[in-house]
C-alpha cells in the first residue's frame, strides 16, 4: 500500500493552497492560545510574585491541567463545547498556563534585590518600579517561557485535528487515515518549521526588548 517515493513532491506542489490554509489555521490557533495564556497567567503570576503563599495552589491547578493528556482533554470537552474553536482553545490555553505562570514568576523573582532597593531609594513608586524596572529585567526569563509555550502549543495544535481543526495536524491525520506517507511527513515537517520560525522570531523580540543584555558579551 506504500509503493513509490517517500515524499511525492508533485502532491506537495499541487496542494500549496491547502498548505497555506492550514498554515493560517495553525498560526491563528497558536497566537490566540499564547495571547490568552498571557492574559490569564500574567495577572496570576503578578499575584503569585507578590504573595508567596498563592504560588502553591496556582501552580497546582495549572499543573493538573498540564498533566492531563491533550487528547483526553479535547475529547472530554467536545460534548460540552462542540467541535468548535472554543474547545480547541480551552485546551490549548490551559496547557500554556503552567509554563507561563512559572516563568513569569521566576523571571520576576530573579530581579536582584539590590536593584529593587536602589529603585525604591531613588523614589520610584511601586507601580513605576514594576513597569520600568522589575518587568523589563524579568523579560529574558519571561520570553523564554513564551518561547516554550509557543513551541509546545504549535505541537499541540496538531492534536486538535482529532476534533476537526488541527492546522498541519490535519495532514498528519489524513495521511494516517489512508497510509499516505507524504501527507504525514509534510504535516510533521511544517509543524517543526513553524515552531522554529516562531522561536527565532521570539528570540529577536527578546533582543529588541532587552537591549542592555546584548551589550554584555557571553
Amino acid at each position: 500500500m506504500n509503493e513509490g517515493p517517500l515524499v511525492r513532491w508533485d502532491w506537495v506542489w499541487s496542494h500549496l493552497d491547502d498548505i497555506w490554509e492550514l498554515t493560517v489555521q495553525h498560526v491563528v490557533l497558536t497566537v490566540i492560545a499564547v495571547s490568552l495564556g498571557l492574559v490569564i497567567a500574567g495577572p496570576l503570576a503578578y499575584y503569585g510574585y507578590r504573595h508567596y503563599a498563592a504560588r502553591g495552589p496556582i501552580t497546582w491547578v495549572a499543573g493538573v491541567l498540564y498533566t492531563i493528556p491533550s487528547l483526553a482533554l479535547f475529547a472530554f470537552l467536545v460534548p460540552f463545547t462542540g467541535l468548535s474553536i472554543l474547545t480547541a482553545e480551552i485546551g490549548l490555553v490551559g496547557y500554556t498556563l503552567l509554563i507561563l505562570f512559572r516563568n513569569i514568576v521566576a523571571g520576576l523573582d530573579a530581579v536582584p534585590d539590590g536593584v529593587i532597593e536602589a529603585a525604591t531609594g531613588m523614589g520610584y513608586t511601586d507601580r513605576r518600579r514594576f513597569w520600568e524596572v522589575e518587568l523589563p529585567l524579568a523579560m529574558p526569563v519571561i520570553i523564554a517561557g513564551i518561547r516554550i509555550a509557543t513551541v509546545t502549543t504549535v505541537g499541540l495544535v496538531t492534536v486538535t485535528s482529532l476534533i476537526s481543526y488541527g492546522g498541519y495536524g490535519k495532514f498528519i491525520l489524513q495521511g494516517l487515515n489512508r497510509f499516505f506517507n507524504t501527507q504525514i511527513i509534510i504535516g510533521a515537517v511544517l509543524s517543526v518549521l513553524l515552531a522554529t520560525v516562531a522561536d527565532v522570531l521570539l528570540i529577536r523580540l527578546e533582543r529588541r526588548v532587552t537591549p542592555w543584555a546584548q551589550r554584555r558579551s557571553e
Partner: protein
Amino acid sequence: MSGFWADAWTFVLDNLSGDGGIPELLVDHIRISAFTVVLASSIALPGAMWLGHRGRGLAAAVAVVNIGRAIPSFAIVALALPVTIAIGLGLGFWPTFLALFALALPPIFVNTVTGVSEVDDSLVESARGMGLTESQILRTIELPIAMPVILSGVRLSAVQVVATATLGALVGWGGLGRYVVDGFATQNNPKVFIGGLLVALLAITTEIFFSFLERVLIPKGLRKGKKGEPSHERAEAH
C-alpha cells in the same frame, strides 16, 4: 452532572479486573514507559557523559532538543506507523515504542551533556593533577555533581513518555489511551475522563517517584535550593 460522576465511578468499578480493565491497561502503560526510559537512558547516558566530559557537542545537543521539542508527538506516532509496518513489525506496540523512544532521548541526552560539561573545570583539572584517569574523573567527580541535572532530564523524559503513551491507542496499541480513544469514538465521556485522569495520576506519580529518586541519589550538599529554577527544561508532556 451528578449522572456523569456516578457513571464515571460505575465505569471504574466495572473495570477493576479482566480484559481491557484498569489494571491491565495501567500495567501495559507503565511497562512501555519504563522500558522506553530505561532503554533510552542506557543508550544516551554513556555517550552523553563522555561528550560532556570532553566538552564537545553542546551546540549540537541544544539544536537537537530544540528540534525534538518542536516535532509534535502526534506526528512522531503517526510517522512511526508506516516505518514499523514497512519493516514488518506491524502496528500496536512497536510504532508506539518507536515514537516514545524518539521522544525520550533528547531530554536525557541534552541534560546529561550540559550537566557534565558544566562541572567546574578547576575541579576536573585538580583531579587530573592528582593523577586520576579520565574515566575515574567522570565517574567519581563529574557524575555526582551533574546528577541533579541528569536526573532532571530523565524525569522530564519519563513524564513526557507517560503522557504521550496515550497516543499509542491511535495506532492500535492499548494502554490507558484506549479509554480515551474508544470513549471518544462512542461518546462515552465518563470513559474518556477516567482515561485522562489515570494518565494524569500516573504522570504525577512518576514525578513523585523521581523526587524520591533524587533524594536517594543526590548527596545532600548538592541538592537544589528552595527558589526553583526557571523552566528552560520543563517537559513538553504531550
